[in-house]
């Protein structure tokens, strides 16, 4: 099984804060990989570096065999990486359907920029809205959606361009249990069709139930990586979360 996404010794500091220290992760193609770690361990920063929203101070990011370190966000997207944000970002003044159509350019056969988005793109967008249960809101303004609905919308529009790998940043955060299960089910369905997922989450049930592989980040470095059961029992991981060790390492 090949690694679809790989980071190699990525480091990133913000002033004196070393958010990432030689972080090296691997995401196997076709897997659902979890990325966990205490608050401040650098998970979102790693996402930002991978997707081009932050520059890495050092290290490399690989997609397939290609080096994509420090590529701009629009290029990272074009290469097939989709990503959601911790604080859900949608386009509030546009309708739900329009939100979907922004990324649907790939389904657009016409190369004329002044043309309206064609039927194939719209159909594809509606399919995804159906998939996430938002089809009934297609004409509503995105800002009228509830928090949970926005999360679903963000997931949907990230999927529009058919990315090979999707990075989800806390998809279950602040969401009721029914919706969490819905999201997990959708992820499983998409994974069955071959999509790779890298998920940052704090909700352990969500992670352990969904992910085949889990990587743990603490203070910017990878301290453990493996199947969920092994991670659950790993001493270093427990130490990182609960701060049992004497040297005071905890989840500051």
């Amino acid at each position: 099984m090949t690694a679809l996404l790989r980071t190699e010794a990525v480091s990133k500091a913000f002033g004196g804060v070393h958010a990432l220290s030689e972080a090296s992760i691997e995401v196997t193609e076709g897997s659902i990989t979890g990325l966990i770690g205490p608050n401040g361990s650098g998970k979102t920063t790693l996402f930002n570096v991978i997707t081009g929203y932050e520059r890495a101070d050092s290290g490399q990011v690989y997609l397939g065999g290609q080096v994509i370190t420090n590529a701009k966000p629009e290029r990272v997207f074009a290469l097939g990486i989709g990503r959601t944000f911790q604080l859900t970002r949608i386009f509030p003044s546009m309708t739900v359907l329009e939100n979907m159509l922004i990324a649907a350019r790939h389904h657009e056969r016409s190369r004329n920029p002044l043309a309206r988005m064609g039927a194939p793109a719209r159909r594809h967008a509606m399919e995804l809205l159906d998939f996430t249960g938002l089809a009934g809101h297609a004409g509503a303004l995105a800002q009228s959606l509830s928090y949970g609905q926005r999360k679903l919308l963000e997931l949907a529009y990230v999927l529009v361009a058919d990315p090979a790998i999707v990075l989800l940043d806390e998809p279950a955060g602040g969401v009721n249990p029914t919706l969490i299960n819905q999201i997990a089910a959708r992820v499983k369905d998409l994974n069955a069709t071959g999509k790779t997922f890298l998920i940052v989450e704090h909700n352990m049930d969500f992670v352990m139930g969904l992910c085949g592989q889990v990587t743990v980040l603490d203070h910017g470095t990878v301290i453990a990586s493996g199947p969920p059961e092994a991670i659950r029992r790993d001493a270093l991981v427990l130490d990182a979360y609960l701060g049992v060790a004497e040297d005071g390492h905890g989840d500051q």
Partner: protein
Amino acid sequence: MTAIWRGSGKIGTEHRWRLAGAGALLAVAVAFPLVFTNPAVSNYGVLTLVFVAAAVSWNIFSGYTGYISLGHAIFFGTGAYFTGVATKDWHVTGSDVFGLLPLAGVAAAIIAVPLGIVALRVRRHTFVVITIAFFFIFQLMAYNLPSLTQGTSGLLTPTINFDPTTFNNPFYYVALAVAVCMIVLSWLIRRSRFGLQLRAIKDDEDRARGLGVRPMRVKLSAFVISAVPMALLGGLWWYYIGIVDPSSGFDPLFDVAVALMAFLGGLGTVSGPVLGALILEPAQLYFTQQVTSGYVYLILYGALFLVVILMLPRGIIPTGAELITGWRERRARSANPPPPGQPASSAAGRLSGRESGATRELA
């Protein structure tokens, strides 16, 4: 506007009403100078149409992307001076001068590219100021290059031998043509893929990048598209007024006036800037002519400004649309009360609206 209404057929009838309305307006506009032959009245028409076109063009960039430009007068003035210099150097006369206008547009496009590349790299707040800075540089050049621009004495038009009774009409119809073209273009853009990208940039530029939108390319295109008609209008305006000098060709109040028209009508809509210009330009002309007691008109103008912005922050068209939708919903609800056990749609909407509002505040 791109709402998908399931099976109610409402799109069909709404579309037809809109087209009919637009057609009627166009007919009125075409007939206007033929009916009102008094030059004082058609003068209002010419200048109003110039500002309608200007507001619509400005809106294509600033309204759709949210980057407020206060420097579009650069292109207006450049168009005026370009047309003036070309008319003189190439000895163009009569209605041939109108043929120079597209060239003025090309000139504007050429300078818009480097200006845009520099200006669009910065954040929105900074962008406004950099457009102001560019504006003053251009105004200064107009003052300081008298060999080209005649400096403060201004660049005069040659004598125009149009029939005096219908003198205003050629200018009127050219302005109308520009206005109609820009309105159609604005409408096309708004419903197109390009328009989606522009509006995505306005809502959340960084997020849009993560969905493949290339911000510089999109913004620059809109910038150039909005600059070209400005130059055309500048050239037309020079020929109509008879003279351009640095303070009138590069007038700091020009952009603000245009911006206000767009804001008043509804920033980012197609018809908003049209409505705003139709209201404000005649009002401004009237005020400056009638209220001759000192500078009271300035105070009134500013006060009107304030009232409009504070009371109608989103502009007339969007506020009006909201009122109509609200009224329709209330009517629909009173005609079809929801079955018991289900929340009324507006209550759910209000709940999620509050929720989402709160989410936005904290986000």
